[in-house]
């Protein structure tokens, strides 16, 4: 919960606990670790965390050095608090640094050992496909690249992600939408849709009109490019709406219309006087298209597209220059047939004449489709009901295709498609032992939904069917193959988009009066920078430490100008060096800086919280309600805010958290609410320095970077925690902590390569094993 952090004071529960501890200032005696544990607990912890007081609902009374495994639930908490330096609390005698180090090391070893001896992988819940997974799965299954999930209800999230099995509930609305969506997709894929003329509107990506558009010739401006799915071999109309004003003395502008990269018409797009007042004009062309996806592009030849249309506001009169407003695609007209689309090619592997029994061919087709859709080998039990649907559809529609359409709808609404059920019992209901290994088939799905947010491809599935996927060499090779596949950008969209809150960039609404220089092309550039950067780290297998300390980023001309980088020309994003600039790492990306601000100002508290929570894994407790007011001056000036927060920290109740939060946030104060660099705010010089509770000075973004690199153990464990949560689709529990530590150690041992992180997750206990506690008794 963000915003009320501005002035948060945190009630520290342990301060409420009795205060008779002043006599206990003695340090824990140094000795062997087991004794250190027991004496530390006795001397420092039990006064609050005993069976009677149970401060923060925690008692350590039952902990001894010989039952660490049994006490893992509480000891993992102890370990975390010790490592973060949060316990004993402020105002209590502190532990000696060497005591903490010794205890932490010993506890980790003991807890990891206990876990290795008796692993608890948790019990995965069945997971409904979320919207992203549904869209990708249909795309990979049928070769139809459309937003298939556009009608499905939005997915709820938990633990920071929207792929959490327990949270992905199913309402009647979902069922309605699954059915209508499956039927729409099936008609389109098989080609049984009835031709019905509709118009689709494509609007130009927001951005400055003088930027070249990727995919259009370099010399063209004010244009747009998009992919449209044409459902039939038929005629379609392309209507290009252009906006602009003829500059005196300039020749008529030339509008270039392209299909799949080839020019289909160069319009002499002259505006006459009457149209000048309107500033817009439509150019329409009717063309035959083959069914399937085609790329449509429209742009003005550069010499005619003067870059002076600044306002995107439709009310204002356009300046000189021309741009494409939007493009309408209408049709189909004169439909010739369903055509030879990718989906028909894939689906209709055999064909059956109308007067013959189509069942054998249908069974063949449905076996192929169901195997991919259900991510497992299928048997007659799976196929027979689909063949019944096929017969019904064939009878009703009068053609083989209508039968396939109906059966395909069945596949797409089947729980076997819509739910992932790792470790479901075998058909005979057997399962032995408390813990079992995931089958290769389940592993293939888990892997592909993890790295691709989609179903396994043929290579993965056939390896799994042959029982070879879990062979270590094979598995490693597959992981590397999957990471270098473009489909791994799902990790950027779905994992990083949520982990780093990047999904909020698209809807963020900075106050235009406060930040007049922010516009849609910057918003696009912010998003693109971080996406390209993360894709680079993933595909090129970079060190994950670059996430916090890269000396490079990706920028186009607009973003480079915004960042003050020289020598970047044009709309294309490229890798650029950040040497000699205050930036480096995602914390200094404008995307992150913006979504950790308020619409009208920065918030060191929000940014500090973001860093603690998402990079260091130490989320501060939420503030209590009804916090005392900050003085009004705090709202209006940087200095005022700093003063107010310093007062805040002077109070012991506040300081527990704010002493940790604020310096991390203040280090980023040189970036405003949309991430622009600044040295002063409203005439006051910005002071981007502060001291952490342990005395570490943090000054500016470089200082923050040093802190993050110094705390790389926490950073890597946090990244591992987040990525493991995402990979498993469940929240992590105390019994997962040994796995997180093991992942971190493997990443450290492999130069922090991203692939090592993924490999370690895939090899981890919770990823590869499953608990059977919830399963019905064995028969």
């Amino acid at each position, binding site marked *: 919960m963000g915003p009320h952090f501005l002035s948060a004071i945190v009630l520290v529960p342990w301060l409420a606990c009795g205060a008779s501890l002043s006599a206990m200032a003695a340090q824990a005696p140094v000795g062997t670790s087991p004794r250190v544990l027991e004496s530390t607990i006795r001397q420092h912890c039990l006064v609050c965390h005993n069976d009677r007081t149970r401060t923060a609902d925690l008692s350590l009374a039952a902990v001894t050095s010989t039952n660490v495994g049994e006490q893992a639930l509480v000891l993992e908490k102890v370990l975390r608090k010790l490592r973060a330096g949060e316990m004993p609390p402020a105002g209590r005698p502190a532990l000696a640094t060497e005591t903490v180090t010794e205890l932490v090391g010993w506890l980790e070893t003991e807890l990891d050992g206990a876990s290795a001896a008796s692993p608890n992988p948790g019990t995965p819940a069945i997971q409904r496909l979320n919207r992203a997974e549904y869209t990708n799965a249909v795309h990979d299954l049928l070769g139809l690249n459309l937003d298939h999930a556009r009608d499905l209800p939005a997915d709820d999230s938990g633990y920071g992600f929207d792929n959490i099995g327990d949270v992905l509930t199913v*309402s009647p609305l979902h069922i309605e939408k699954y059915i209508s969506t499956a039927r729409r997709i099936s008609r389109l894929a098989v080609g049984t849709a009835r031709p019905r003329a509709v118009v689709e509107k494509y609007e130009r990506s927001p951005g400055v009109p003088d930027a070249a558009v990727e995919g259009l010739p370099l010399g063209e401006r004010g244009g747009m490019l998009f992919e449209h799915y044409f459902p039939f071999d038929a005629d379609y109309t392309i209507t290009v709406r252009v906006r602009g004003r003829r500059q005196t003395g300039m020749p008529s502008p030339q509008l270039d219309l392209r299909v799949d990269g080839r020019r289909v018409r160069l319009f002499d797009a002259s505006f006459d006087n009457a149209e000048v007042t309107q500033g817009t004009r439509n150019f329409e062309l009717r063309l035959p298209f083959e069914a399937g996806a085609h790329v449509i592009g429209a742009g003005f030849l550069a010499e005619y597209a003067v870059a002076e249309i600044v306002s995107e506001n439709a009310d204002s009169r356009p300046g000189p220059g021309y741009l494409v407003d939007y493009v309408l695609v209408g049709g189909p007209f004169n439909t010739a047939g369903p055509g030879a689309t990718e989906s028909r090619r894939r689906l209709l592997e055999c064909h059956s004449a109308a007067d013959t029994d189509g069942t054998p061919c249908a069974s063949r087709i449905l076996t192929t489709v169901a195997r991919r859709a259900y991510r497992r080998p299928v048997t007659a039990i799976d196929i027979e009901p689909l063949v019944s649907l096929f017969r019904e559809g064939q009878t009703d529609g009068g053609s083989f295709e209508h039968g396939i359409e109906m059966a395909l709808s069945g596949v797409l609404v089947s729980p076997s498609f819509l739910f992932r059920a790792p470790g479901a019992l075998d058909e005979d209901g057997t399962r032995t032992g408390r813990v079992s290994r995931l089958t290769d088939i389940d592993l293939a799905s888990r892997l592909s939904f993890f790295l691709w947010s989609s179903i396994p491809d043929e290579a993965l599935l056939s390896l799994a069917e042959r029982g070879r996927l879990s062979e270590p060499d094979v598995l490693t090779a597959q992981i590397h193959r999957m990471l270098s596949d473009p489909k791994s950008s799902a990790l950027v969209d779905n994992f990083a988009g949520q982990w780093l809150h990047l999904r909020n960039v698209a809807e963020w609404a900075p106050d235009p009066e406060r930040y007049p220089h922010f516009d849609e092309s910057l918003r696009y550039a912010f998003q693109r920078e971080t996406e390209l950067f993360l894709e680079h780290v993933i595909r090129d297998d970079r060190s994950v430490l670059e996430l916090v300390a890269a000396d490079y980023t990706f920028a186009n001309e607009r973003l480079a100008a915004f960042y003050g980088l020289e020598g970047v020309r044009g709309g294309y994003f490229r890798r650029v060096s950040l040497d000699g600039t205050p930036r480096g790492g995602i914390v200094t990306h404008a995307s992150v800086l913006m979504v950790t601000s308020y619409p009208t100002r920065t918030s060191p508290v929000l940014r500090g919280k973001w860093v603690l929570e998402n990079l260091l894994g130490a989320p501060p407790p939420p503030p209590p309600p009804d916090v005392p007011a900050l003085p009004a001056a705090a709202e209006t000036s940087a200095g005022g805010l700093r003063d107010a927060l310093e007062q805040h920290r002077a109070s012991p109740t506040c300081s527990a958290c704010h002493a940790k939060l604020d310096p991390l946030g203040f280090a980023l104060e040189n970036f405003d609410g949309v991430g622009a660099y600044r040295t002063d705010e409203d005439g006051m010089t910005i002071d981007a320095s502060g001291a952490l509770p342990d005395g570490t000075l943090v000054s500016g973004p470089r200082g923050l970077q040093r802190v993050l690199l110094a705390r790389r153990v926490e950073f890597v464990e946090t990244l591992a925690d987040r990525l493991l949560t995402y990979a498993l689709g469940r929240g992590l529990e105390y019994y997962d902590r040994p796995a997180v530590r093991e992942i971190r150690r493997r990443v450290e041992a492999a130069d922090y390569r991203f692939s090592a992180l993924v490999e370690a997750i895939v090899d981890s206990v919770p990823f590869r094993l499953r608990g059977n506690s919830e399963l019905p008794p064995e028969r």
Partner: protein
Amino acid sequence: MITTGLALPRRTFLRGLGATVALPFLDAMTPAFATAATPVTRVAFIYTANGVIMQDWTPTAEGTGFLFPKTLAPVEPFRDRLLVMSGLAHRNGEALGDGPGDHARAGASWLTGVHPKKTQGADIRNGRSVDQMLADEIGQTTPLPSLELGLEDVRMVGGCDSGYSCAYSNTISWASPTTPLPYENNPRRVFERLFGDGETTDPAARAVHARQNRSLLDFVVDDAHRLQVRLGAGDRRKLGDYLDSVREVERRIQNAERQERVDLPPVDRPEGVPPTFEEHVRLMSDLVTIAFQADLTRVVSVMYSREGGNRTYRSIGVPDAHHGLSHHQNDPVRMAQLQKIDQHHVAMLAYFLGKLQDAPDEDGSLLDNAIVLYGSSLSDSNAHTHDNLPALIAGGGSGMLRGGRHLRYPEGTPMTNLFLTLLDRMGVQRGHVGDSTGQITHLGTL
């Protein structure tokens, strides 16, 4: 690249079909105008999140003849059809030992009166919401038992309350303690759900289509049963919820097939989500009104905003984010900004009430026969207080409600007592709703 589909020709989409063909959801349903001799009561629950500035909401005087405070001014024209209710509370929205998370608890408890289980995901549990209890009874003869709508896009991340899954903030309607009902925020999808997507218009084809949908549902049920026996207890329960939803849709299809086909008022098919909040609310209000008129549903819930939501309202001069502002720390400037939002939302309500008033119904207007509960589940968002909640009821409730009054109930009176009373007056017998302790008085009398 923004892609927006629109039908061709858009403006005459339905009219072009002779205005006689209705194309409801799944291409199978046909709406029918209410033909009952007795007026049908329609119920809407409209939620405004993040509390309100109570001093500008609560009338000073009680009973009749009170002055409308600033925030309520936009609905003053409906004075005779309004009951402002003070003193109601949701104790189950309070922490009760669960610590922070008041926003999530507020949204989740508004219509349930139940203390939601604190969890990020595992084991989500709330209560059944009162709109769904009503839908069980008065929603069984309409194509859709209820309709859940909202204005915010819920894709924002990192915005849900401390330790609570976003499921608790993303809806106020719960079909069961474990099944939150997601809302539609795209008017076009709402339209298509009510009137169909126009894929099939021929009655015979539509009948075939409906039968095929039933075949698909049968197939799903069989498939799910085969999967179910292979799952653990938790997963079986979850698949059970899935099957419940499948059966509910089966019932809706059967129900729809029994409906008579009748004329529909001319409706334009919306293009998508309008660019401004105001247009968006108005369009949703239009759709609700027409859904009521055509008797497509009798129960609606609408979320103008969701708890913790951070919409900015630049159109009324509020560039700051709503939730952030709601922690105003008694700063007069921020309180004034927040009050503007409160009043703006009430102005949106006034638009909806006006639509209902203009829609003729048995014995008067839709408003005469409607019950519209409007309010928030926090009063002072800054302090996260769950008592003395802002609540008003608009509409005549088919003669059940007597407006023009400000009623003050004893402090701490459960909001659920109001729900229990409304259910009872509508002939829905429930022993209790959430934490209700009994019925409240004075709804229809002095």
